[in-house]
């Protein structure tokens, strides 16, 4: 062999290096792709990228095997005339044919009833474009994956503090001393989280993980607090109880920056009961919280909030001059948590009361005694100058462990309130926002207000997704019934700000609220891992009317791989891989901002598209032009954008707005940032700058942004927000109370249908409260004593990495992890075949003992199980024979309460899919049962355009024995 020291790797072949952005997951790290003779030699983290600082993850480093996977599609496909849907029988067609089919069908729908076209997208990062397309088309039936993902986290926090975790904000681990992580296995922002977690530990920080399971991050926690699933609300409220009882809250912070001291009308007889008492003041209409509320000054009594020199109280009950009884909202919170003692929570969470108390003390004392003071002067919106920025170094992070329960919204409200009590919002060492957050509570965009917002050949009157601030913002008809196919923004789930994608297929199949014609799915594996009740959903997709027509007449699937869903398509659009296309990580949807300021990024093609693969963005722009959607056409009806790069550069939110998809290098010569004219060389400038643009705010704008005058005015000036008004924390949620008042019939305007009044009244509580997950009420919890969870493996992204020859060696199939104590009680041995059964179905799988799981919980890795033959795998592959999907036994709807009354298995406030509520029992499989998982599905056929069968051996050597050459 050549001496490796004498010879450099770059001597072999023609070497090129290109920077772009990873999309092996939604974390969006900067990567450097090295090519040798046009084949991918190596993908590494880009050390100059702020997001991942050079590191990469298991998936990112396996990009080669994704690029050259045999599961890749390469041709547009049309279901064969004589083949049934789901049989995976397709013929190759040309793109021109594909476009004319879509143009004709969609053109007709748009001209007649645009809502019959539904566009739903999964793990994508281009909602700015897909949302724009849907709105321009005029259909309300659009959403991305947020509803089944973590909308509770977004809504619970944004409706409380004006920002949320992941790309919207996060724990300031550089300065934190105590970090509490709840219900997180991997997170969206996974590489940055790992980077900071390790730094935090090395700096001597204390890390506590609250999770029924100890894997991944929890493994390196200084303390693991196992909790019973679905009970974090109880824990957090008990901690709030203890913090308030001990006086460990940050009183000054609460008074100045939250509505803690603001006076709430406390007379149940009044129609404005539970609303803040507001005095007459001219307020400009806008989506901000006008400052016409009152404090109770110790000396003077009622006084306008933020009156200079005021000394407001936060406890007590008072009577205003006009006899109205009022209470500072903090008093109401205190009353609320009175009963939530640690002893009470112990019975629910299975965490000892002494531990709960200690956790509260650790948080409170650390926050109080380890104050950080940074000599950064800033000015608040009320004109007060501050010589320094201070902070309390306790921080939190939480994810779907809280979100994916039907009580998640209130749990997350409780968490946000705990963070606020500790005084840790947008301060050093606590939680910090990332641009474009903070945004008003709630943010401005609103859905249309009723069916009249949907008109033929007209763009939708409102945003397909928005943030209702009051009942009148709901998207319902005269009867208060939903207008959207997923029933979002209806009384069933009023604050379903990300839609309810998990109910689309069921609703469309049942025709409730109506039938649709065309369902377009992009980057969503809805026939498998992103649906609940998978077995049934797969039947719905092929179910027909009496007249032989499919209940969902036409399904278009845009995917890069041979997923389970592609088999159910009538038309398949082969997408490019992330290394073959342009993409934008835009401030308009999901940027990669840092605490220090906005950052956005692009992806650029580094290799040629495979076969006839076409970026979905190009498809949308082509379709938009053909359908003559206003945003995609010139006045004369001609096509406006040549292609997606042209769109990225030239699109403006409104003519001349200067706001587009990308915020860097705007203006003709690229000299402007955030706002400015289109710059024809913008993409090149991004490409030269590691495919990203970072803007660093002045230090004095980096903290206390909800109330930071400088920041808010800057944000307004640069088109990030419309108002430079303070964003006071909603310790007490007047927004929720408004819905409750409507349900109680106390407000004019939209009213819930009778059947939902009780529900809305119960769950729209202005203060957080604990209730058992909804499913528990319908299920005999004695019979189904266990909770079943899934976790994300760090080395796999949902369903889409089983086609990856390297990653699938790490997770080839999955086991059900069971505490030995629990397993033995059911006579199940380590490695045994067993059944896991919920009221909705049962699965045969294999058991693996684990001491790292709470005995009342069983769990498995998410989305490892596959349909045989899918994903370019053989029908014998372990994924289908030994792997399984927990989704088969999770229901998308709650068991019927009354005949004909269907309710989504979701959080009643936000419509968040309650994946983790499912209750199960387990038992051993008989010895004579087959050693394969159950249920099994018919083997999926290989598609035209997929690579021929691969050999037994694969020995990838870029440029030599690679897989990227033509013909492979």
């Amino acid at each position, binding site marked *: 062999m050549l001496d490796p020291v004498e010879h450099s790797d770059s001597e072999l072949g023609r070497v090129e290096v290109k920077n772009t952005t990873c999309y092996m997951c939604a974390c969006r790290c900067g990567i450097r792709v090295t090519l040798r003779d046009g084949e991918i030699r190596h993908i590494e983290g880009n050390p100059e990228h702020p997001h991942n600082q050079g590191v990469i993850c298991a998936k990112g480093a396996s990009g080669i095997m994704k690029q050259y996977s045999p599961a890749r599609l390469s041709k547009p496909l049309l279901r064969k005339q004589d083949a049934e849907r789901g049989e995976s029988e397709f013929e190759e067609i040309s793109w021109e044919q594909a476009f004319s089919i879509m143009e004709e069908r969609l053109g007709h729908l748009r001209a007649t009833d645009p809502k019959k076209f539904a566009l739903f997208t999964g793990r994508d990062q281009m909602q700015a474009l897909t949302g724009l397309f849907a709105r321009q088309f005029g259909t309300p039936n659009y959403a991305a994956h947020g509803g089944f993902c973590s909308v509770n986290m977004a809504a619970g926090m944004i409706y409380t503090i004006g920002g949320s975790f992941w790309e919207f904000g996060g724990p300031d681990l550089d300065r934190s001393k105590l970090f509490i992580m709840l219900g997180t296995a991997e997170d969206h922002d996974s590489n940055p989280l790992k980077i900071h977690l390790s730094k935090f530990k090395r700096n001597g920080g204390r890390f506590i993980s609250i999770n029924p399971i100890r894997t991944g991050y929890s493994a390196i926690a200084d303390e693991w607090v196992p909790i019973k699933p679905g009970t974090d609300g109880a824990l957090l409220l008990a901690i709030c109880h203890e913090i308030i009882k001990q006086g460990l809250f940050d009183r000054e912070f609460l008074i100045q920056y939250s509505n803690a001291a603001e006076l709430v009308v406390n007379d149940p007889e009044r129609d404005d009961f539970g609303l803040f008492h507001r005095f007459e003041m001219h307020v400009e209409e806008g989506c901000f919280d006008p400052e016409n509320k009152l404090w109770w000054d110790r000396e003077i009594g009622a006084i306008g909030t933020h009156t200079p020199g005021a000394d407001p109280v936060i406890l007590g009950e008072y009577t205003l001059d006009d006899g109205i009884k009022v209470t500072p909202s903090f008093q109401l919170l205190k009353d609320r948590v009175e009963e939530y003692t640690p002893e009470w929570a112990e019975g629910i969470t299975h965490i000892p009361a002494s531990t709960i108390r200690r956790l509260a003390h650790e948080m409170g004392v650390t926050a109080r005694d380890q104050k950080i003071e940074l000599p950064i002067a800033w000015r608040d919106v009320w004109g007060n100058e501050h010589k320094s920025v201070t902070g309390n170094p306790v921080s939190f992070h939480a994810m779907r462990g809280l979100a994916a329960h039907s009580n998640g919204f209130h749990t997350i409200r409780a968490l946000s309130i705990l963070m606020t009590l500790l005084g840790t919002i947008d301060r050093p060492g606590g939680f910090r926002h990332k641009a474009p957050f903070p945004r008003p509570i709630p943010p401005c965009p609103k859905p249309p207000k009723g069916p009249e917002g949907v008109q033929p050949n007209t763009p939708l009157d409102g945003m397909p997704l928005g943030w209702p601030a009051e009942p009148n913002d709901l998207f319902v008809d005269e009867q208060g019934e939903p207008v959207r196919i997923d029933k979002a923004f209806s009384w069933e789930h009023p604050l379903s700000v990300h839609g309810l994608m998990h109910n689309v297929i069921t609703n469309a199949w049942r025709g409730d609220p109506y039938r649709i014609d065309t369902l377009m799915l992009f980057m969503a594996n809805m026939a498998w891992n992103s649906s609940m009740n998978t077995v049934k959903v797969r039947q719905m997709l092929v179910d027909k009317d009496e007249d032989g027509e499919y209940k969902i007449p036409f399904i278009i699937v845009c995917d890069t791989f041979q997923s389970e869903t592609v088999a159910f398509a009538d038309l398949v659009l082969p997408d490019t891989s992330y290394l073959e296309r342009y993409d934008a990580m835009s401030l308009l949807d999901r940027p990669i901002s840092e605490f220090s300021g906005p950052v956005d990024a692009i992806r650029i093609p580094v290799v040629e598209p495979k076969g006839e693969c076409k970026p979905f963005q190009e498809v949308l722009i082509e379709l938009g032009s053909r359908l003559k959607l206003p945003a995609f056409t010139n006045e004369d009806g001609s096509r406006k954008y040549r292609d997606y790069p042209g769109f990225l550069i030239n699109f403006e939110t409104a003519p001349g707005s200067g706001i587009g998809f990308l915020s860097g290098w705007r203006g003709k010569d690229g000299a402007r940032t955030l706002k400015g004219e289109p710059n024809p060389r913008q993409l090149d400038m991004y490409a030269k700058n590691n495919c990203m643009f970072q803007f660093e705010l002045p230090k004095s704008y980096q903290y206390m942004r909800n109330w930071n005058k400088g920041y808010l005015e800057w944000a307004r000036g640069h088109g990030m927000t419309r108002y430079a008004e303070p964003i006071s924390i909603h310790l007490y949620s007047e927004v929720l109370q408004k819905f409750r008042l409507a349900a109680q019939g106390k407000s004019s305007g939209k009213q819930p249908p009778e059947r939902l009044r009780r529900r809305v009244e119960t769950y729209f509580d202005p203060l957080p409260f604990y209730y058992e997950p909804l499913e528990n009420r319908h299920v005999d919890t004695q019979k189904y004593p266990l909770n079943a969870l899934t976790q994300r493996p760090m080395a796999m992204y949902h369903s889409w990495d089983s086609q990856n020859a390297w990653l699938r*060696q*790490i*997770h*080839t*199939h999955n*086991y059900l*992890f069971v505490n030995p104590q629990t397993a033995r009680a059911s006579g199940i041995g380590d490695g045994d075949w067993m059944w896991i059964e919920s009221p909705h179905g049962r699965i045969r799988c294999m058991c*693996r*003992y*684990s*001491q*790292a799981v709470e005995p009342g919980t069983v769990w498995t890795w998410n989305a490892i199980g596959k349909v045989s033959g899918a994903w370019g795998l053989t029908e014998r592959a*372990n994924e289908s024979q030994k792997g399984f999907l927990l989704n088969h036994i999770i229901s998308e709807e709650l068991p019927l309460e009354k005949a004909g009354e269907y309710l989504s298995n979701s959080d009643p406030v936000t419509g968040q899919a309650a994946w983790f509520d499912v209750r199960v029992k387990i038992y051993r499989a008989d010895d004579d049962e087959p050693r394969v998982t159950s249920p099994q599905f018919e083997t999926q056929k290989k598609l035209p355009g997929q690579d021929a069968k691969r050999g037994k051996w694969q020995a990838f050597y870029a440029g030599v024995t690679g897989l990227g050459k033509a013909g492979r």
Partner: protein
Amino acid sequence: MHPAFSVIFLTTLIGAGQGLFLALFTGQFYSLANLIPAQDSAGFYAVGSFVVLLLLGLGLFASIFHLGRPERAWRSAAKWRTSWLSREVIVLPLFMLLVFAYGFAHYMGWNEPLFTLGADIEVDVTILIGIAASFISFVLFVCTAMIYASVKFLEEWHHWLTVANYTLFGLASGFMLAAAFSAQQGVALVSFFGSWAVFFLFIAFITRFASLLRNAGLKHKSTLQSAIGVRHNAIVQETQGFMGGSFNTREFFHGRSEATLKMVRLLFLLLIFILSPLLLAISWSISSPLLPIAAFSVLYIGLLLERWYFFAEAKHPQNFYYQSMA
């Protein structure tokens, strides 16, 4: 360890070959001293040597299957200073060469005495070659056995008993084969070789039993605790980090149940130490050429099982790292 059939055949075949050669030469030596009748050079010794070479050749052939790149086998002589494998690779052909020379000399009838020792011991070329080959044969036993005995991580093997067992089993099977050969050739040396074979079996029984005993009570140096450096009584591997197997799960595990192991052990003890000598003993009363051949065959099968067990029994410390998938 995973019992590799190539190695099982290699060691048992060349062991028997070496033993056979030593038996032949012992015969010649005895006949020199006129303790037993002399045999025909070409008919007995040359053919015998051919059989030895055949066994060695078969062993070598089997060993090829053990190598990933047999075409480069020649390279393996390079590191004789440090590697027992390298030494074996040198000694084995040397031995074959000497056996060939020995057989060839017999075949050519080079029986002219070169000199005479004492009164009437006439030393010819074959004797000189035979002495050299015998010496090398023992060296080969040591080299082969040391390949295993020198791996200190395989504590079941890392003992002089391994060398003793390899040598004794080689001798026993070789002498038994010589008995069978004599029976087949119709030569009256069956009981001569047979007695030696039984004698070696008897010692082998002691050494092999000693090694079984030792291994049964062996306390391994490494523990899961020392493997990962964590002090706790309850450590369980949850996952080894991959699920479809790897070289480490294939090469170092036999993949059989404890019961199979026990059965194989019983079987080889039975075949080697009871059935084979029994068959031979019967041949003393019923002189049939088939019985000694059967005795050897049974012994050889027993040895294959013994060697299989030898591998399966050895627990490699690397196995601490490859216990579970999830």
